């Protein structure tokens, strides 16, 4: 009910501020039409979230379905008939849903990391399939009026999408509230263990929810195709944010077991409305002096491109906080009682911990290291894979392009790419070892870069101020991450997911969506080679080995090695590093042992933001410009690096050496894929798809080979079959 009132309030507010846009029935109709697609996806997402899962891939599925439909249907591509195109799209939706579900349930990958990868892979496919171009097919659309009429206004005067959305919402609400499917969903989300004991096939329940969510996104994608008769690569970008925010605002709990379809649909209306209000802008009157006269001019103040996610991200984090901090603590009831001077109502029984993270311990690997010697001992290390892969990949490069790979300039080009990633990885290693995750590193990189660029270019600040401001912006983002995750006890993935959108939105806002460039060269020295800096200060090195070294090594590489060295020593050899590992291994045991686990997690999250911030400041100096897409996909690279390097997504593991080697693996893979072998090179868009696949493979290897010791168990089973079983030691 409060939601409805809020809705009316925002709408009236929007109407009052901008009557031309919001006052008319057309506007209301347009609002409902745009809401309907979000609401359809929200219905599926409600099932997923009640299951205590998360599906970040819906925005990508929505975009991918629209693109695949365009590729199949458009005369300029496959030119298939309408029925085949729709069937293929639905099949695609089913496959993605199944992949998500199987990854999360049977293969036990944490939901946020599995679906984040699907999101990025899907986004990579969208860019690759469209080549970054829009595809339109209005001509051929006339051949299938029945399908395309779905996206248009019907004889009753409203858009068919609204009707479809209503049907799906009612069906979804009925299934969730009245049928066994719904009851099974609530049981699974409320207490999965209990549900298993009660004979509910929880894996199937969760896979089913992912299928529903994916199918809903598919339907929404098809509707958008029917409405627009075309597609652009931007379809569905950050759609998952809108949908998840809608579902959470609609009363679902991120901790599972709570949620309603009606609430989710209302939430969808609210989020779409907010989005529209933010995008439409404020009519303002400006006074301009022309000569002696003052002229008032009507203008519109609107947010720059890309700034809207700031508010949606904030909304997401706040909405997630409402449930544990307002509803469970009965703030409203207690406030009302306080107003009337009555004693507060009896408190619910509140458990010791309000919110629990996702992290579960699944580790049970036997210690192979103890029995091994020499090289075997090295192989048994968790970071061995990354080191070996680095060597193998480098040799592969040498094999493919013996003329070019060995070359000094190529090596240092790789080293430069490596530096940015490695710097981010240093901080992320701490976060992952402490059992958290930071999804916002790429966005924080962009935020710090944009802040520095803004001060340099727009305010004309000197380099030192710019660096300070960049650091300040990045560290503020880190502080918010740490406070929300540690202080307010939200799971780190949701806190940093909010920051992922907020920081990138702010970065775009600072620079108004533009690329900034052209500022004092003094700042750019941060991204130059050592020799350039010496020359800047008129120091000329004599010819020789020192000079050649200074000509190839960049100052940021030196800095990265310095930071990594200190961070590595602290992590491996000091009590603080041990505290980080203990916190990630078993946070309760660490707390009982007197370790300040909050401090360890807080410092780790701040360090991750600090490293990303430094990378952002250096990025701007290196390119001599700031591009709002800086650092995109970097979180994917960095998480993959740490996991390949021996980190565990469940926390407690990860070494600096391993993470640096993991970063080298990712850098080399990117370099190899870009390598021109006999006139063939892979386009950039496909590379991100490939990296996504590597990330998910690394997580799977970590869970199943390193922790569950799949091979060891297989070997043991084979050995047992060979001889009579012995009674195992208790």
């Amino acid at each position, binding site marked *: 009910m409060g939601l409805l009132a809020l809705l009316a309030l925002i709408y009236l507010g929007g109407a009052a501020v901008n009557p031309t846009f919001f006052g008319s029935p057309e506007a209301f109709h347009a609002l409902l039409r745009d809401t309907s697609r979000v609401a359809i996806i929200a219905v599926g997402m409600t099932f997923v979230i009640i299951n205590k899962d998360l599906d970040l891939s819906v925005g990508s599925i929505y975009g991918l379905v629209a693109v695949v439909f365009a590729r199949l249907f458009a005369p300029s591509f496959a030119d298939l008939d309408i029925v085949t195109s729709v069937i293929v799209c639905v099949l695609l939706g089913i496959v993605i849903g199944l992949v998500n579900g199987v990854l999360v349930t049977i293969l036990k990958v944490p939901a946020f990391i599995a679906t984040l990868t699907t999101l990025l892979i899907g986004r990579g496919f969208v860019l690759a399939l469209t080549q970054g171009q829009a595809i339109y097919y209005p001509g051929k659309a006339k051949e299938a009026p029945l399908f395309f009429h779905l996206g248009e206004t019907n004889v009753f005067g409203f858009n068919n999408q609204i009707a479809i959305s209503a049907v799906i919402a009612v069906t979804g609400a009925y299934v969730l509230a009245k049928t066994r499917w719904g009851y099974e969903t609530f049981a699974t989300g409320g207490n999965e263990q209990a549900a298993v004991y009660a004979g509910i096939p929880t894996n199937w329940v969760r896979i089913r929810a992912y299928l529903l969510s994916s199918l809903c996104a598919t339907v929404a994608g098809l509707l958008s195709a029917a409405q627009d008769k075309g597609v652009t690569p931007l379809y569905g970008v950050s759609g998952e944010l809108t949908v998840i925010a809608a579902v959470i605002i609609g009363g679902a709990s991120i901790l599972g077991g709570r949620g309603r379809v009606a609430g989710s649909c209302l939430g969808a209306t609210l989020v779409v409305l907010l989005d529209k209000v933010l995008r439409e802008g404020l009519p303002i009157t400006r006074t301009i002096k022309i000569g002696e006269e003052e002229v008032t001019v009507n203008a519109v103040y609107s947010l720059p491109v890309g700034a809207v996610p700031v508010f949606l991200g904030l909304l997401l984090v706040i909405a997630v906080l409402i449930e544990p901090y307002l509803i469970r603590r009965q703030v409203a009831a207690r406030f009302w009682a306080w107003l009337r001077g009555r004693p507060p109502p009896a408190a619910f029984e509140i458990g010791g911990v309000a919110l629990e993270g996702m992290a579960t311990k699944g580790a049970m690997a036997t210690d192979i290291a103890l029995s091994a010697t020499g090289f075997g001992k090295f192989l048994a290390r968790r970071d061995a894979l990354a080191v070996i892969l680095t060597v193998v990949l480098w040799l592969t490069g040498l094999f493919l392009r013996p003329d070019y790979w060995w070359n000094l300039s190529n090596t240092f080009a790789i080293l430069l790419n490596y530096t940015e990633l490695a710097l981010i990885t240093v901080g992320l290693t701490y976060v992952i070892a402490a059992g958290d995750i930071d999804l916002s590193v790429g966005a924080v990189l962009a935020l710090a870069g944009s802040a520095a660029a803004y001060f340099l270019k727009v305010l004309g600040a000197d380099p030192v101020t710019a660096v300070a401001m960049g650091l300040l912006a990045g560290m503020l983002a880190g502080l918010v991450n740490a406070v929300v995750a540690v202080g307010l006890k939200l799971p780190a993935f949701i806190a940093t997911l909010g920051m992922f959108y907020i920081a990138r939105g702010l970065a775009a806002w600072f620079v108004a969506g533009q690329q900034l460039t052209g500022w004092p060269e003094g700042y750019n020295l941060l991204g130059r080679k050592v020799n350039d800096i010496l020359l800047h200060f008129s120091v000329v090195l004599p010819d020789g080995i020192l000079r050649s070294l200074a000509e190839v090594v960049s100052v940021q590489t030196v800095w990265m090695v310095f930071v990594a060295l200190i961070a590595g020593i602290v992590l491996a050899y000091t*009590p603080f590093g041990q505290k980080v590992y203990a916190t990630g*291994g078993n946070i309760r*045991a660490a707390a009982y042992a007197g370790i300040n686990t909050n401090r360890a997690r807080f410092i780790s999250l701040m360090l991750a933001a600090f490293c990303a911030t430094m990378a952002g400041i250096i990025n701007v100096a290196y390119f001599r410009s700031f591009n709002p897409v800086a650092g995109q996909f970097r979180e994917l690279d960095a998480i993959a690096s740490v996991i390949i390097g021996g980190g565990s997504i469940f926390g407690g593991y990860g070494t600096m050496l391993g993470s640096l080697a993991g970063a080298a693996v990712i850098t080399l893979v990117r370099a190899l894929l870009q390598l021109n072998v006999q006139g063939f090179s892979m386009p950039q868009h496909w590379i991100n798809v490939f990296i996504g696949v590597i990330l998910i493979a690394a997580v799977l290897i970590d869970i199943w080979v390193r922790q569950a010791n799949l091979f060891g168990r297989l070997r043991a089973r084979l050995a047992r079959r060979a001889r009579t079983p012995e009674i195992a030691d208790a």
Partner: protein
Amino acid sequence: MPDAALPQPIVEMRGIEKVFGAVQALRKVDLVLYPGEILGLVGDNSAGKSTLMKILTGAYQRDAGEIFVAGQPVHFKSPHESRDAGIEMIYQDFALCGNMDVGQNIFLGRWPRKGPFVNRRKMYAEADSVLKRLKVDVNSVFQKVESLSGGRQQSVAIARAISFEPRVVILDEPTANLSVMATERLLETMLELKRQGVAQIIISHRLVDIFAVGDRVMVLKRGENVGDRHIKNTDEHEVLEIIVSGTREQARTADQAKAV
């Protein structure tokens, strides 16, 4: 325990009360523990056993009552303060970090230092000597705890507890997750600790274990004392009867029961 003039109790709790919301979890509960004694704390679920122990360690704060450790009144605000007073608790799930090795776990949170770094050599040497003192077999102090069996993990947890040189060790359901073999070994370890003069409190549902090593058994029911017996003057049947049908009015202390 010698029957002669009793020494000063190492732990004495008097009139402990604790309320959770509308639930009175503990009502005027008394507890006495003498040095080197093994006290079994039994009772049905929700009898208040764990609550009483958490109040003793400072994990919960009492609403009323007094606690004396070695005759000194104390008021622990956290488990760390009770640890300083020589009281250690071993949790049902052992509270170890599976990703770290045995040595690191024994010194969890108080790793010996050398300058700013962890002094590994000293840590592993001392861990080894603690394990030897306990006479338990854990292959190597370098082994990761998650690769150990349940019984060995418990040995590590006990080793960790006694490395603080405690005067009192509280074991919360120590045999709940153990096999028969491991339980036997645990009981031996407890007797070894007793020989070293460490007083112990076992919270357990398994009367067999308490009768195997205990000196005295104390029964709680719905947050109240309902009885207290010396092991040698009672049997499992009587204790079970007290658990099921004991009331505060009928409650007798161990010495009263012996006198009858």
